[in-house]
């Protein structure tokens, strides 16, 4: 379920070059995470809104806890080192899809 959800997020994210998606929290460390913490870095609000709207269709959104910030916020907050967030593809490599979900 986690692998499938990450794959769905990745499929959507690739459509939005104005968005960078990172993953942090238990999904990087636990085999039974309760949810998936996503960091979405957006350059324009409209882009974030479109990405969100797209994700709300067909994604198991109860699993996703999304933090959204601009590149400026990201830089100033020190969020990446603090949260140890990893790019989405790195998280995906920890959750290989072994079988169709």
């Amino acid at each position, binding site marked *: 379920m986690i692998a499938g959800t990450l794959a769905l997020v990745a499929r959507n994210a690739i459509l939005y070059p104005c968005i960078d998606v990172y993953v942090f*929290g238990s999904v990087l460390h636990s085999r039974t995470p*309760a949810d998936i913490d996503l960091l979405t870095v957006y350059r324009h609000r409209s882009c974030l809104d479109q990405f969100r709207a797209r994700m709300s269709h067909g994604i198991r959104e*109860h699993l996703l806890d999304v*933090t959204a*910030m*601009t590149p400026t*916020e990201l830089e*100033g907050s020190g969020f990446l080192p603090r*949260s140890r967030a990893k790019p989405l593809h790195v998280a995906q490599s920890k959750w290989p899809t072994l079988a169709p979900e």
Partner: protein
Amino acid sequence: MSSHGGTPREWMRSLPNYEWLRQTFVQLEYVDHAEFNGSLITLTRRENPTVRLGVVTTPDVTAMMAADLTDEIGLFDFMMNTPRTGRFMGDAISYCDERGVGWGGVGDAMRALRYQDPGGYINPELRFILRGLSQHDRVQETRLLDDRRVFVERRGLKPVVLYIGSEYQPTADSVRSAIDRYGEFDVYAATNPNSDPTPEAIEVGDRSGIPVIKWGPVLSMLRQ
């Protein structure tokens, strides 16, 4: 008529058979078996009594929906709303509290299942905030307007409405989303002790006349 465009009963009956919910619950080490029957999930636990979980999928849970759910499935221990962005309104919270029913989203339900009695569950962040307010010398009474906003009656001072922003990192987007989704409140309380609101988050609040401040300063502010 409710906000989703149909009656609550119609809404609940339109619940799909969520395979992902079954997977979510059966993966828990303390759950032995999950049985789905319409809006009812019966969870057999390894060490604790069986739990009856009432399920709704709606943007805003109201007391009427909770009452309809009771009519449909009988008594239940926990009321779960599946959308992450779903919200429990104050009257629904009162309905549940008066009947010893726990309430919350999927994550709350998963945590509540660790309790011997999930009916006694309250979201830990909310419990922390309510406890802090109950011990405050200026606070006379608190009332939940919904699952994020607390109406705080103060001794000798004007009441205030706090928004509980418990996200990992309060950002401009989280403040903007709170204002869009929850409407009126006086203060955005950033309750996560490990992160400061970003300057952009504070700026968004300022533009709406809403201070975005951490929990400690909120407690001080309640004296002013």
